[in-house]
């Protein structure tokens, strides 16, 4: 039989990031997919040797421009645990607010890219139009649209005043309303369902054994959400992981879509419960020891391993990002699918290659 070998990426318009998939097709049906990485690999874990542990916050923040704040939060939490620092309550609630804002903007961004992957351009535009509101909140409160740099070890750098909180709540109301309008399209549209339902199915068993994380895992029916660990202020807020059971691209889409509303709700709760107080405590001494830190990113659980030996520079920083854990799922999902499903399936794990390769 004839076969087609397509180099999918590193430069490819449906994958904004450089990753390569060597696809072997037969009449557009995939028989083999081999990924290749290394186009974004910078080796920034190694930078810990030449940047001190405070500067590393800004380096790990730039692992990924979409969930930058959460990377920094995870890193700071790890060091705080290692150094025995108690973060002030207000700072913990502020971290919840900003991290959930990041989740909303990330999910909206993903929703747009996902729509674009199956050629639904107006849906893409709509999602990104809504997303701009979140970016405005970010910029107004922290000074930057994307890489917001609010975390420091021991707390946060910026505060929200009453006026800003009021504005955020009203903006969120708009976002909620606008997003809700897209519900029928994302959840029920014939063409959307045709392109997503039954594509890239992962059973509960498969998803668990592949070590998947985040919405991909939750779409396969497993209620695993690292926020349940109760870091930051999540132990003081009510929520339950969003779970779907179909395990296909459609289910992943539904999980993320529902999580947008969950996040809006979490922000409202956090704002309601946020106490007054300091933003950060002063850091004394230098870190020493070994620590593991986990938080939930929009894409799933991010895992930090930090080892320090009392010097200014850390001994080892190891980051296992959610996409890194989800990549094996691609290898399980792609064979047997169609070429036109490749973008849909690849985007359904919400890949962040710069996270994966660091």
């Amino acid at each position, binding site marked *: 039989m004839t076969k087609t070998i397509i180099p999918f990426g*590193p*430069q*490819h*318009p449906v994958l*904004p*990031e*450089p990753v390569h998939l060597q696809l072997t097709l037969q009449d557009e049906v995939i028989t083999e997919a081999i990924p290749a990485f*290394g*186009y*974004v*690999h*910078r*080796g*920034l874990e*190694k*930078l810990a040797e*030449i940047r001190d542990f405070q500067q590393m916050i*800004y*380096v790990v923040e*730039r*692992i*990924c*421009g*979409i969930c*930058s704040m959460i990377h920094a939060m995870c890193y700071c939490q790890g060091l705080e645990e290692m150094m025995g620092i108690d973060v002030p309550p207000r700072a913990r609630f502020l971290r919840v607010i900003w991290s959930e804002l990041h989740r909303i903007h990330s999910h909206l*961004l993903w929703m*747009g890219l996902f729509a674009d992957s199956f050629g639904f351009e107006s849906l*893409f*535009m709509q999602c*990104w*139009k809504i*997303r*701009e509101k979140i*970016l405005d909140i970010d910029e107004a409160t922290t000074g930057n*649209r*994307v*890489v917001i740099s609010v975390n420091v070890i021991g707390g946060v750098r910026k505060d929200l005043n009453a006026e800003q909180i009021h504005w955020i709540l009203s903006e969120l109301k708009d976002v909620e309303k606008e997003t809700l309008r897209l519900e029928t399209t994302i959840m029920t549209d014939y063409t959307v369902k045709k392109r997503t339902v039954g594509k890239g199915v992962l059973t509960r068993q498969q998803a668990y054994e592949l070590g998947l994380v985040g919405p991909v895992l939750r779409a396969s029916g497993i209620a695993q959400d690292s926020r349940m660990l109760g870091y930051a202020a999540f132990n003081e807020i009510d929520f339950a992981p969003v779970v779907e059971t179909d395990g296909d691209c459609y289910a992943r889409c539904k999980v993320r879509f529902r999580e947008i509303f969950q996040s809006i709700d979490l922000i409202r709760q956090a704002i309601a419960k946020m106490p007054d107080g300091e933003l950060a405590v002063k850091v004394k001494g230098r870190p020493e020891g070994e620590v593991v830190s986990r938080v939930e990113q929009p894409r799933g659980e991010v895992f930090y391993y930090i080892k320090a030996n009392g010097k200014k520079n850390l001994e080892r920083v190891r980051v296992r990002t959610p996409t890194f854990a989800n990549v094996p799922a691609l290898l399980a999902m792609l064979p047997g699918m169609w070429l036109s499903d490749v973008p849909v399936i690849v985007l359904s794990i919400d890949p*962040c290659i*710069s996270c994966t390769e660091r």
Partner: protein
Amino acid sequence: MFEKILTKARMLSPWVLHFDCGSCNGCDIEVLACLTPVYDLERFGIINTGNPMHADIFLVTGTVNHRNKQVLRNLYDQIPEPKVVVALGACGLTGGVFREAYNVVGGVDKVIPVDVYVPGCPAKPEAIIDGVVLGLEKFRQKASAMHS
């Protein structure tokens, strides 16, 4: 006469190829944000072609590393003249915060000639628009140099 129309058309229809050359996604999503309703680059006739063969302006984000430097060069070579390279963000200009990392070659200009530098981390959409507009000036010069 035709020359004049051509120059005008060139200024009004710059097609863009965006290549993420190892960026953290910050600049990439800002580039994409430029295409979306709030910034709407298509007002200037800009289309994100995603294909070097059709592009006029090459938007590069991110640090160059050892694996993708050849990709960058290949793509640059595939763009037909006249063409303009716009490097975005701290990483694309110098390597930014990752300059000293072991797998980083540096800014885009280490591999291909860059015409416009857009600073920022990430570069704001307004800055990207400014950068493209600045690139167009260069584009006009290159085009007239090509004809003469």
